[in-house]
């Protein structure tokens, strides 16, 4: 089962290909190739759709106060940081949520500390170099808040913060497309989990903060520049996963109706 799996490193753009039984074979796509003569399908690197399933698990770590949260944070597994920032997209939540991560939501709903909630919600996790950096930023904010001492030292017992860990299982759907037209239709019909993997989580995996769709579209050169800008400008924090997918499909649809799929 061959195919291409998009993956990027900090130093260069790389398309890691021929994903088969967990073995990834790197195929570098030179800039020259990406930005010229990409209109012929034979030269295109196909997009291979992956899917994922997020299995959530209890860590047993639960805290009641801000001090307890700060004390427990270093012990939380790294997947827990991931879950409380990204995993929320794959579980019951509504787009109208005021905050973009669970720490901020809890600070407001359980501690009644709206100021802290706003500070925590301002963390743009996708800008961090990794999950440990997200943890460090969280710790810094909590330390600063605790130093100021303007927080509640008590709270009700039934509003604990539970650190939840997760295992992200990723698998190959076997679905591969080469043309822009097929790509647009495939994004429309791919599962929400697959969409999450490529579009939301892709930004985290990318050193440049690019989702997998945008990275793949680069090979079409200037013809897809505006499309890529549109895809990258969607604020993923403000919508539910279903709404995000609808929005991305709409952007792709507008591009297609404008003749972009044929002209790129």
């Amino acid at each position, binding site marked *: 089962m061959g195919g291409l799996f998009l993956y990027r490193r900090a130093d260069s753009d790389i398309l890691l290909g021929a*994903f088969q039984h*967990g073995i990834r074979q790197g195929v570098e796509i030179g800039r020259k190739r990406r930005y010229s003569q990409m209109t012929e399908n034979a030269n295109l690197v196909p997009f291979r759709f992956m*899917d994922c*399933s997020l*299995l*959530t*698990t*209890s860590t*047993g770590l*639960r805290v009641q106060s801000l001090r307890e949260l700060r004390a427990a944070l270093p012990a939380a*597994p*790294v*997947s827990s940081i*991931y879950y409380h920032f990204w995993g929320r997209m794959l*579980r*019951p939540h*509504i787009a*109208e949520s005021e905050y973009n991560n669970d720490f901020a939501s809890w600070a407001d709903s359980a501690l009644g500390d709206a100021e802290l909630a706003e500070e925590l919600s301002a963390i743009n996790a996708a800008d961090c170099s990794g999950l440990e950096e997200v943890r460090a930023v969280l710790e810094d904010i909590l330390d600063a808040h605790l130093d100021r001492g303007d927080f509640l030292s008590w709270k009700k017992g039934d509003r*604990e913060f*539970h650190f*939840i*860990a*997760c*295992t*992200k*299982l*990723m*698998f190959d*759907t*076997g679905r591969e497309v080469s043309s822009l037209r097929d790509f647009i239709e495939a994004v429309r*019909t*791919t*599962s*929400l*989990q*697959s969409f999450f993997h490529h579009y939301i989580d892709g930004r985290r995996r990318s050193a440049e903060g690019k989702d997998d769709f945008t990275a793949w579209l680069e090979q079409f050169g200037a013809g897809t520049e505006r499309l890529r800008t549109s895809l990258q400008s969607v604020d993923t924090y403000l919508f*539910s*996963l*279903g709404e995000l997918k609808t929005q991305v499909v709409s952007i792709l649809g507008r591009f297609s109706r404008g003749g972009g799929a044929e002209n790129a």
Partner: protein
Amino acid sequence: MPDMIARYAEVVGPHTMDSLKIIADMLRGKRIVHVNSTKEGGGVAEILSSMVPLSRALGLDVSWEVIEGNPEFFACTKTLHNSLQGMPGGLSEGQVEAYAETSRLNALRLGGTLEDADYVFIHDPQPAALLGLLPGRRGKWIWRCHIDVSSPNRSVWRFVKKHVEGYDASIFSLPDFAQPLPHTQCLITPSIDPLSDKNIPLQKGEAERVYGELGVPLDKPVVLQVSRFDRFKDPLGVIESFRIARKHVDLRLVLAGGGATDDPESGAVLDEVQRAAAQDPDIHVLVLPPDAHRTINALQTGAAVVMQKSTKEGFGLTVTEALWKKKPVIGGDVGGIRLQIINRFNGFRVRSPEGAAMRIRYLLAHRWKRERMGVNARQYVLENFLITGQLRRYLSLLIALDSPGGEWERWI
């Protein structure tokens, strides 16, 4: 694609079913067995009634076994259930003996099937002791706890823990319910089946006809609670809420439920409810058989407001069912109801009969908001609490149990 899969695809989308099929294919040839304590009545039996056929339609080898027990055993497991939800008291010596003896007899009866299985799901505490009685087992065993065990009676929890700590994994509905155990504890919410009799769209006029057959006039708005006659569902609190609200708005209350074969206490609670409702022509207490799924569907469809004023709740599938039918729900601020009801988005969470009465009045006075919340309610269930999603998570757990490596991001 088999017909059943196509029907689910019409509800959740073909891409969701395609994705589920890929996951199911990874477990093809594996033998999976579910074990619980009743074929009818209660959320577990309903979930399995849908999950087992759906799993088979996806090509999986799945069976469902039910343990057998005498009234003494079920009295014991009801005490277990209540105590795990925090009620004081404990097991008598006789009950402990009944539990051990019934478990032994069921191990003899089901041993061959269970020891040969690749994966065994044991649902709730009733069959939990089977693991310790089948040392020849070769597969992975998962204990699925559907109960709110956030604040259990500690002595009873120790009794249950002794039986479940040997499992390969356990599943709880919410993080609040997870208890210290020496294995992976997964968090997976239960779900409803959009194609079951309880949840399919009804023919036009069917709800009105069923209300008529049950002797409940639809001359004024109906507030409904559907649940077992169980103290934790607080049916008396619902009656109190209704009586407070009725001082301001004309309405009817329907309390509909039945007992499960593994719940010996429901008769006593029903007596209390009937006494409290006596002589009140606007309160209708309906005792329904365990298979009255379409009747419950009609009751929920025809109600103006649905309540689930539980004081303890593992998850509250009746909440999910009502949300699916575009009904805003007024629910107790406990357990799984907290995950399902978001204040003002698809219902209200309340902590007292007075609070519930206020929300009844609000919803009946604001028709447009009620309808808007109903639309949100259905979409929320579609995205989060359907059987296809729950099965996907169960199958993912099985795959994870067999996939080596400790990395949290894994290719399978």
